[in-house]
Each structure stands twice: as C-alpha cells, then as structure tokens.
C-alpha cells in the first residue's frame, strides 16, 4: 500500500494545466477526499478500458466477415501489450521525473509519488490508480492505429509495433504534455488528450496505411470501390460503448471528483457528440444524398474526439459548435482520404486525426479564462498566443509521432514483413493466421449436425466402409 505518508501542500498543483484553481482549495488532504478522488479515477479507468470492446465492435462491424476473428484477437492482444509495456517502461518515460523531453524514473512503477512521479504530487490518488487510468488511454490510442490497418496487417507485425508504440512513442508525447515536459512548460493545454491520444493514434495509423497500401480490390481504375463492413448493429454498438466510455475519458482527466465540476465536463462532451452526429447527418445528406449510417456513427466519434481537449475549458455553446464542425467536416474528409488513394476502413484519419487537431486548436479560440486559470481564447480577446502554442504543440506531435511510427513500421516491413500475403488477405486473416473462421457456420457447415431436423435418428456408423482411406485427414471419418 503506497500511501504518500506526508502530503505537502500541493503548490505545484495550482499551476498545473489540468486543474481549475478551485481544485486546490477543495483538497483539504483528508483521507476521505483522497478516497473519493481515487474512486472516481478508478471508475473512469474502467470506463475507458471498456472502450476496447467499443473499438473491437466498431472495427469488426466495418470490416468483412472473413477478418472478424482476427480483429478480436488483435484487440485482446493490444490491450495486454499496452498493460505490460506501459507498466514496465511507458509510465516511467511518460510520468517519471526527468528532462523536458523524457521521464527516466519509476520503471516497473517502483517509487513513491513525491520522489519518483513528482507530476502527480498533491492529487492524493495512489500511483496504481493513476497507472490504470493512463494505461487505458494508451490502449485507446493503440486501437486507433489498428483501425486504419485492418484486413491487411500481419498479426505478429502489429504486435511488435504495439510494443514500441506503448513502450516508447506514446509515452514521449505524453511526457511533453501531461508529464510536465516542455510543451506543458510552454502552456500547451489538452485536458483529456485530443492530441496526445487521438492525434497520435491517427498519425501512426496514417503511417501504417501509407506503408501498407490499400486492401486488394479497394481501388480499381482510379476509383474507390466501396468495401462495406458486415454488421452495422455491431459497429454502432461499438460507438455507443465508446460514447459511454468517454464520460470517464474526459470526466476522469481532472484526476478528481472533489472540487471539479465533472458534470459540466461530461455535459460538454455529450453536447459535442450530439452535435457531431447532427453535423455528419447534414454533410452526408448534402454530399452523398443518403443518411450513411457509418458516417453518422463516425460523426459522433469526431464530435467526441474534438471536445476531448477543450471539454473543461469551454462553455457549453462552444462545445456544441466544436462538435457540429467536427461532424460537418467528416464526410468531405472521408472522400478526400479516398481521393488520395489511402485505404482507411473505419475512417480513423478524419475522425481521430483531423478532429483531434481541430479540438486541440479550438482551445486557442474558445478557452474561458476562469476555467483554464489564465489562458483565454481568441474570441474572448485573449489574443493569438494560446492558439500559437496549441498550433506548434500539434505540429511537434505530428512531426514526432508520424516519423517515429513510420520508422518502426518500415523496420518491421523489411525484417519480419508487415503486410499479409495476397493469398492470406483474400482468404481472410481468420483462416490464414488463426486457423479458424470468425463466423465458422458461415464458411463451413459440415462438422456436427447442423440441420434443424426434429425427427432424425443419428446416422449409423457406415458399417462396411472400405479400408480407412489413406488421404482422409485426422478425425474426418471413423
């Protein structure tokens, strides 16, 4: 039990980007207050971890039946890698004490908060709860990456990338911002991670999509052939799970329930989500002449991603505006991505990349002074400073994460190989890499009696079958 025995008055806390000024007063350092804050951080971590089920359903719903099983295996494996790698190395790099660029203390989560993880001093939340919360964010970012590399990436190839991403690439940018690194020092604001989690995920996804190239049959004669998924119910079930998880994603990022109006943060979050759906509906009707279900779903995601950075810093009307813009620009962006011959099965680049940038920059426009403890948006006369900080923060993230991810993926490509073989891709990843179809009864209907025949005696073993055929596979015939 690592209770920080002595609780220094959280001087550092007041300056921290995350916490509204009112927070300092509320932390009267009592055992009970810490317990309530810790309870909320743990519950928020559970909500964000549940988003792995959301991504798994969204991704499998929007891809072909023959890859359904592989996506399930990948998501399970990503979550496990994120847990182990972030516990061992990632957390230390991200939130350990160190330089402005990288943390270097607290490997394997060893060490106490004031001495090893100074950035978390004063919150009164045990390090394990903070780890749970932050590792859930890593897993979300990793799921975004795999979203754009579906149906054509080798399982083992992505596993290796995941090790690097969770252990190294993600933690770097996390250190710069939430870890008290150089971007934090410059006053860069991102409450819940539009840039750190979503933009990073989309950048790695872009690197992957470019290096892998499109799926077989996606582009023919310069045209994008629609490869629809196999189940909108599963896809939209995924979107609802993400919608619920986002309450923990944004609401929990203050690392406290006492002294922060989590209701206000979550209201902004859900107003932006609703606006995102409505925006995407309008754009889809206008551009495609139909209400495309997958676009409406992605509109909700775009709205949620965009409000993630500014959720605690803007008023509710601004939240609606941020959301509707994110939804409106989604369908055109999806067309643009396809025009650029990039195959992005679930629309990760527009929904997480562009919406992530828009959300991070929107702080520079709509930030309310008494919410951010000082920084003020352009429209309130706060000048362009904050917007400029947000801009080069995004630029730094784009430069670092895209290059780092591209390098790692190229490394994998020219060693183990990143892309599935043609045969494997056409046959589907389920049967070629996992030896079993995701929907067994859809592809093989032989083993075991499957016919619905209430009045059938079991077949007598063929009495006088000639000698056991040489070629018969094990177990096929008695």
């Amino acid at each position: 039990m690592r209770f920080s025995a002595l609780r220094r008055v959280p001087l550092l806390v007041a300056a921290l980007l995350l916490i509204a000024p009112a927070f300092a007063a509320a932390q009267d350092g009592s055992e009970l207050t810490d317990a309530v804050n810790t309870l909320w951080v743990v519950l928020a971590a559970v909500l964000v971890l549940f988003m792995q089920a959301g991504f798994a359903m969204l991704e499998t719903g929007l891809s072909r039946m023959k890859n359904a099983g592989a996506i399930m295996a990948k998501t399970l494996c990503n979550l496990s890698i994120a847990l182990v790698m972030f516990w061992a190395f990632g957390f230390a790099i991200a939130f350990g004490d160190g330089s402005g660029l990288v943390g270097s203390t607290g490997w394997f989560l060893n060490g106490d908060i004031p001495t090893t993880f100074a950035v978390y001093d004063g919150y009164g939340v045990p390090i394990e709860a903070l780890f749970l919360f932050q590792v859930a964010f890593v897993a979300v970012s990793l799921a975004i990456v795999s979203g754009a590399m579906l149906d054509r990436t080798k399982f083992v190839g992505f596993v290796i990338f995941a090790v690097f991403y969770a252990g190294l690439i993600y933690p770097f940018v996390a250190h710069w911002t939430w870890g008290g690194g150089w971007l934090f020092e410059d006053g860069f604001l991102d409450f819940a991670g539009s840039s750190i989690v979503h933009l990073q995920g989309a950048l790695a996804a872009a690197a992957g999509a470019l290096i892998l190239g499109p799926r077989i049959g996606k582009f023919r004669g310069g045209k994008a052939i629609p490869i629809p998924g196999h189940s909108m119910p599963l896809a939209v079930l995924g979107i609802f799970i993400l919608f619920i998880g986002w309450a923990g994603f944004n609401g929990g990022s203050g690392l406290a329930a006492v002294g922060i109006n989590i209701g206000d943060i979550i209201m902004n979050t859900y107003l932006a989500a609703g606006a995102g759906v409505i925006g995407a509906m309008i754009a889809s009707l206008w551009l495609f002449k139909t209400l495309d279900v997958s676009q409406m779903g992605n509109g909700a995601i775009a709205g949620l991603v965009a409000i993630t950075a500014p959720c605690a810093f803007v008023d509710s009307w601004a939240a609606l505006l941020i959301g509707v813009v994110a939804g409106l620009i989604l369908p055109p962006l999806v067309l643009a991505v396809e025009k650029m011959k990039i195959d992005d099965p679930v629309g990760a680049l527009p929904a997480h990349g562009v919406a992530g940038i828009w959300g991070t920059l929107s702080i520079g426009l709509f930030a309310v002074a008494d919410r951010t403890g000082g920084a003020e948006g352009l429209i309130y006369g706060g000048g362009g400073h904050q917007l400029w900080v947000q801009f080069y923060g995004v630029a730094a993230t784009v430069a670092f994460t895209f290059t780092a991810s591209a390098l790692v993926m190229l490394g994998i490509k020219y060693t183990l190989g990143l892309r599935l073989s043609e045969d494997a891709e056409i046959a589907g990843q389920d049967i070629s890499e996992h030896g079993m179809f995701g929907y067994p009864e859809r592809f093989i209907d032989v083993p075991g009696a499957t016919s619905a025949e209430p009045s059938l005696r079991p077949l007598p073993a063929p009495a006088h079958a000639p000698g056991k055929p040489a070629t018969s596979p094990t177990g096929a015939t008695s």
Partner: protein
Amino acid sequence: MKKIEAFIRHEALEAIHDRLAHMGLPSMSVTEVKGSGRQKGFTESYRGARTTVFLRPKIKLEVVLDDGDVDRAVDCILELAHTGEPGDGKIFISDIEEAIRVRTGERGAVVLEPHPEEAPA
C-alpha cells in the same frame, strides 16, 4: 455425361464426400437448400402466433460424371444417405451435353475422368 442431383440430409454429406473422394470422384458441388416433401413440418410459435413451417434445411449435392461412374456413385449416395425416416431425400439424374475445364479449356468426358482409386490406408 450425366448430372446427379441428390437432395440429402446435412449429416450424410461428410461421409458421402469422403467415400466418393476415395472412389476417385472428388469433384462435386454442395448447396444449402430448403425442401419440403412427405416429411411433416415442425411448429414454430412466436409470441403466441403459431405457424407450421414446411421448408426444412437440406443439402443439394451436384456431381457431374462420365456415364460409366453414375451407378457406383448413386449406390454410394443411397447407402450413406439412408436412415429409413421420411425426409431422407431423392436423387435425380439428367443428361449433360458438354463439360469444359476452365483452367485448361479441355472439353468432353476427359474433364470428368476419375482419379485412380486410392489404395486403402
């Protein structure tokens, strides 16, 4: 050349496929169909409304063969698809005027030549 169309139970398929393959006749096509015959329908009730469903899932097995192989193939299917209960199914034989292998463009009975019978294991 002849085409055998056999409507049989799902459970019979695996045994028939292996026996035919063993007899050197591996090439066949299988389709999921729903059939009705003398077999009585089964009752289905959904929120109180009862309907008798007459169409039952069956397997349609299609095997195009040279005339010489028809009889032994039919005997094999008859033996392995038989349970003695209504709904065992029926076999229909019709004439095929031409057969062509897409891979090589070959035409005629040569396309349907059986493989040499595998030596018993």
